[in-house]
């Protein structure tokens, strides 16, 4: 038990608890285990905990729960574990906790930024929109960084998050969200039937408002004690999972609910085996919403002074934590519930200076009891202003219709404008709220999902009615989810409190005729005046008012402010509240860490990494890798002292001089098999296939129905009913999907099977004049002569004793082969070929050299030289379209007027006038570089390289009417000057193609 100044002996539920030391802004304090950071600060008389977002006004603790807009602090565990914007009202205290205030400089009590408060007319609603619109360029470089620095809400951690997070999927019959009296009663009713139940509550302890409702008695016990016993019973049941410290933040389609469990943020030294947070993704047959209600503050001048808080919160601090929030408190209310706070505090020995009640002549037992205790009660009066700066020091009271003022010294003001049902999750479930005109509140109206709201979130008043409703709803949810029997008994409410009604909007003294700062939204510093100004400037819908003022747009999502803001706007517009409408509630209900959402999916687990069978060899050789989709591909193989340029030049020259080995395993491969395989190929590719002899290959082009190139690759016919199709590396999955789609839905009459074989075969390209000499010694059962195995043919046989599909084909323009072997043998066969290659001076080459070599020959890469708007004709590939065919995917799209029009962009070659200049890929091309800006751009560079084999730079480009421009000079304007280029054909090396058999 600590000797903190405001801890009341005998009060609260932690009188036996151990002391927990903590620090706030470097100052050391004592709290007790069971405290929140907020209750521990209040126990030490500390109200001032932060500065506000825009005006840097001193702020205290408003609430005792998740709705807290003010008391946001940074919690530090070590250099990497610095969590900003932690609500002090939610953070549980542990021994050694270190907290810092935010948004102040140089100190909390003296903050330079508070000058914004004096200059506040500048910062009124819509200020950012109006002031920083011009000049546009200044936004990014000048205004935004300054504003962000000045108006921060905490500081982001600057090191990687060292904690780990976990993630669970769960299914249940009945999911109960909220563990107050309603949620517990519903969970009991459902659990007693034997169905699977999950009960979750955001607090460390179950009980909800029973934490402070000292007048509640259930089954003969104090309400809170009953809650603990009931939850203990539920926890012991096999069919029930009880989740404290777990917030349901999102309600998605078909009763799919996202919850985040705070696993170890409350522990002094969480072991590393413990996750920090756990994400629960629960699919429930039925959901019971028991999310309670949130108290609203009173909107009056300077209602944000530290020491001014919600009455229910003050009561929680007293009855649950044993902390008096002041020694001489004032109460300002428009409903009954604040009286109970005054009564409890008075009984605990705190002086209650006065109760100021806006209502004219309210009657009831709490009012009588307050009077009987000797508390001064004033009706029909308003608090028109609060005194004090770093802590409230007085409240000034005036009859609500005007008259003489009276200032009463206080050190805290407890306020209550009434309670707002928490319909956030209901609204997220796409249910429609309805406005109850009598009680002036939005309650669940039309349901969109299999859920039910019970208790305060349903607008049900009184503990007895709440428990009845919740117990019946829990039992019904269980029955609807399939329960057969029920054998429980409903909890009996022996005594309860009742408080309803209240007021919405600004109180007297903060009306339209005033210029006072009466805060509606504390976190975003929005006043009643700002809301009125938004309406005055033409905002009509509440969604516009919200965006113009930012009311309700902070991380607290306006839990305390939305209804006040709406009422003020409605009053200004002269419309009833439901006509102005409520803003939509969106997930998350409270902020969720990225860690909880990402869970294990970070670092190497963020995305799968695909590696070829030959990857370890390339790694051992010192290859530099590049990412191609999920694949790691060897980019180039630098020798000692070589940069990329030198390595690529050497690799390119070696291929054309002797030979090169290239790992082509990532190429997509699909086997098309069946009696109708050729018919299917005819429909999916532009080329003719029926007459392709088994053992021969063809370069195929695949279009989409719109006539544009979708993919390409070499296809080998292994047998009349079997094709080995290759695709681009990145295109493999979508090509497979495209083929399956047509086979299953458009051409289901064709008897064909499709199998992805990308991972089954490792592919080793051996290219160059010596390629046959390298391969031949290792091959069995295949005649390697040009007569038996001409260019564009395929044979099955053995290499190094393992099966191979040996393709004679070339993506370099040299004599070339692609050796397919089962992936398990990929590296062994590569090493055998490498050993042979060494006898001939062969080099390993990577993807960069592959790109250069193919460009020297004008072979396109789909996705680089094409962009989804290029037809076969545009790419100079008309020869690959079967002229006699009557159907294939894309045949009609290709004939659309625009696609056959003159002047389309066509692929051509470009040679710079200065052969040393290498163009930039993506650079724009113009006819006349002297024309005015913006120039008419007639095309762009798609591929560009230094070609050591050609001794100059080479490029491919898409140019309007390109083939008719061959020989013309065009221009590429760049920041450092205009580059002159000549339009050429696409083949830069060995135009006759003789080297294919060289």
């Amino acid at each position, binding site marked *: 038990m600590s000797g903190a100044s405001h801890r009341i002996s005998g009060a609260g539920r932690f009188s036996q608890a151990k002391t927990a030391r903590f620090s706030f802004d470097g100052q050391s304090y004592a709290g007790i285990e069971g405290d929140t950071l907020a209750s521990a600060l209040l126990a030490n008389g500390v109200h001032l905990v932060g500065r506000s977002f825009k005006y840097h006004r001193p702020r205290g603790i408003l609430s005792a729960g998740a709705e807290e807009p003010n008391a946001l602090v940074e919690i530090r565990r070590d250099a990497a574990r610095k969590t900003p914007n932690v609500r002090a009202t939610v953070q549980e205290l542990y021994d050694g906790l270190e907290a810092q205030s935010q948004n102040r400089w140089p100190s909390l009590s003296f903050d330079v930024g508070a000058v914004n408060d004096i200059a506040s007319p500048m910062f009124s609603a819509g200020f950012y929109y109006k002031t920083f619109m011009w000049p546009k360029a200044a936004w990014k470089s000048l205004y935004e960084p300054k504003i962000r620095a000045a108006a921060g809400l905490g500081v982001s951690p600057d090191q990687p998050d060292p904690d780990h997070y976990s993630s669970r999927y769960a299914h249940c019959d009945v999911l109960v969200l909220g563990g107050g009296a309603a949620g517990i009663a519903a969970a009991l009713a459902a659990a007693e039937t034997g169905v699977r139940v999950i009960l979750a509550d955001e607090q460390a302890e179950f009980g909800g408002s029973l934490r402070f409702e000292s007048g509640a008695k259930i089954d003969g016990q104090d309400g809170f004690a009953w809650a603990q016993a009931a939850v203990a019973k539920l926890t012991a049941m096999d069919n029930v999972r009880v989740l404290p410290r777990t917030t349901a933040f999102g309600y998605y389609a*078909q009763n799919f609910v996202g919850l985040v469990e705070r696993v170890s943020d409350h522990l002094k030294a969480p072991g590393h085996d413990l996750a920090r947070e756990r994400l629960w993704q629960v699919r429930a047959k039925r959901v019971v919403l028991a999310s309670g209600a949130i108290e609203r503050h009173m909107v009056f001048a300077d209602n944000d002074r530290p020491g001014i808080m919600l009455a229910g919160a003050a009561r929680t601090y007293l009855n649950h934590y044993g902390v008096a929030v002041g020694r001489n408190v004032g109460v300002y209310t428009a409903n009954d519930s604040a009286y109970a706070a005054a009564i409890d505090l008075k009984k605990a020995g705190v002086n209650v200076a006065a109760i100021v009640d806006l209502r004219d002549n309210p009657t009831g037992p709490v009012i009588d009891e307050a009077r009987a205790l000797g508390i001064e009660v004033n009706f029909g009066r308003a608090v028109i202003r609060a005194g004090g700066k770093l802590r409230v020091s007085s409240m000034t009271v005036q009859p609500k219709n005007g008259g003489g003022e009276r200032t009463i010294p206080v050190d805290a003001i407890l306020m209550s404008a009434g309670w707002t049902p928490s319909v956030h999750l209901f609204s997220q479930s796409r249910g429609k709220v309805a406005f109850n005109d009598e009680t002036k509140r939005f309650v669940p109206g039309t349901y969109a999902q299999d859920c039910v709201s019970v208790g305060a979130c349903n607008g049900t008043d009184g503990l007895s009615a709440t428990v009845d409703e919740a117990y019946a709803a829990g039992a019904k949810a269980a029955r609807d989810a399939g329960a057969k029997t029920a054998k429980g008994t409903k909890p009996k409410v022996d005594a309860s409190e009742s408080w309803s009604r209240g007021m919405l909007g600004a109180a007297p003294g903060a009306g339209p005729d005033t210029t006072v700062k009466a805060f509606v939204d504390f976190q975003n510093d929005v006043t009643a005046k700002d809301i009125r100004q938004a309406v005055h400037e033409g905002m009509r819908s509440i969604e516009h008012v919200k965006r113009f003022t930012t009311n309700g747009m902070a991380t607290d999502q306006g839990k305390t402010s939305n209804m006040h803001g709406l009422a003020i706007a409605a009053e200004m517009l002269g419309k009833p509240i439901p006509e102005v409408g409520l803003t939509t509630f969106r997930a998350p209900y409270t902020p969720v860490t990225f860690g909880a959402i990402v869970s294990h999916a970070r670092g190497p687990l963020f995305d799968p990494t695909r590696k070829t069978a030959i990857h370890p060899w390339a790694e051992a050789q010192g290859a530099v890798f590049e990412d191609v989709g999920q694949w790691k591909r060897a980019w180039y193989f630098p020798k000692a002292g070589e940069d990329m340029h030198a390595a690529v030049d050497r690799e390119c020259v070696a291929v054309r001089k002797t030979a090169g080995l290239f790992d082509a395993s990532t190429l997509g491969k699909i086997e098309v098999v069946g009696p109708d395989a050729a018919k299917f190929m005819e429909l999916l590719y532009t080329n003719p296939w029926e007459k392709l002899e088994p053992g021969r290959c063809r370069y195929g082009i695949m279009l989409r*129905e719109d006539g544009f190139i979708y993919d390409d690759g070499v296809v080998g016919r292994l047998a009349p009913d079997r094709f080995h199709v290759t695709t681009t590396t990145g295109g493999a999955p979508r090509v497979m999907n495209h083929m*399956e789609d047509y086979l299953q839905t458009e051409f289901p009459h064709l008897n064909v099977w499709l199998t992805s074989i990308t991972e089954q075969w490792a592919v080793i390209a051996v290219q160059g004049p010596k390629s046959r000499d390298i391969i031949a010694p290792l091959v069995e059962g295949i005649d390697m002569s040009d007569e038996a195995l001409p260019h564009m043919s395929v044979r099955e046989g053995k290499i190094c004793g393992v099966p191979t599909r040996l393709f004679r084909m070339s993506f370099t323009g040299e004599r070339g082969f692609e050796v397919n072997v089962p992936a398990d043998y990929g590296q062994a066969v590569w090493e055998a070929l490498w050993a042979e290659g060494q006898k001939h001076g062969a080099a390993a080459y990577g993807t960069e050299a592959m790109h250069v070599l193919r460009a020297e020959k004008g072979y396109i890469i789909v996705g680089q030289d094409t962009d989804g708007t290029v037809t076969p004709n545009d790419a100079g590939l008309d020869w690959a379209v079967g002229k006699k065919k009557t159907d294939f995917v894309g045949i009609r799209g290709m004939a659309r007027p625009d696609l056959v029009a003159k002047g389309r962009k066509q692929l051509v070659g470009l040679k710079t006038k200065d052969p040393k200049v290498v163009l930039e890929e993506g650079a724009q091309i113009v006819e006349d570089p002297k024309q005015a800006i913006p120039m008419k751009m007639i095309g762009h560079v798609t591929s560009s390289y230094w070609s050591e084999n050609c001794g100059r730079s080479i490029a491919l480009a898409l140019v309007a009417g390109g083939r008719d421009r061959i020989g013309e000079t065009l221009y590429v304007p760049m920041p450092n000057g205009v580059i002159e280029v000549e339009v050429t054909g696409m083949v830069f090396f060995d135009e006759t193609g003789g080297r294919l058999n060289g």
Partner: protein
Amino acid sequence: MLLIRCPYCEEERPELEFRNAGEAHIARSANMAGESDDDFEKFFFIRSNPKGIIYERWRHMHGCARFFNAVRDTVTDRFVMTYKAGEPKPSKLPGVGK
């Protein structure tokens, strides 16, 4: 996350096993090459994009890999029914009043 019943697996499975594949019941012409520009435009570009009941294709990508058809309400995202590819557009929908 939606729950979708695969008519081939005859099981309700989570959405992440599936891929949407656009509007259903748009038949490819048997005489594709002979289609007029207008007919091709209707076939390839024009989609109904209704507020309410939509007939669409889905693929049970990470399950049986079959394409099938579904009836979904675009307002609530609720699946009214699913049926196999090639089956006719249902004339009556369960639980949808007019």
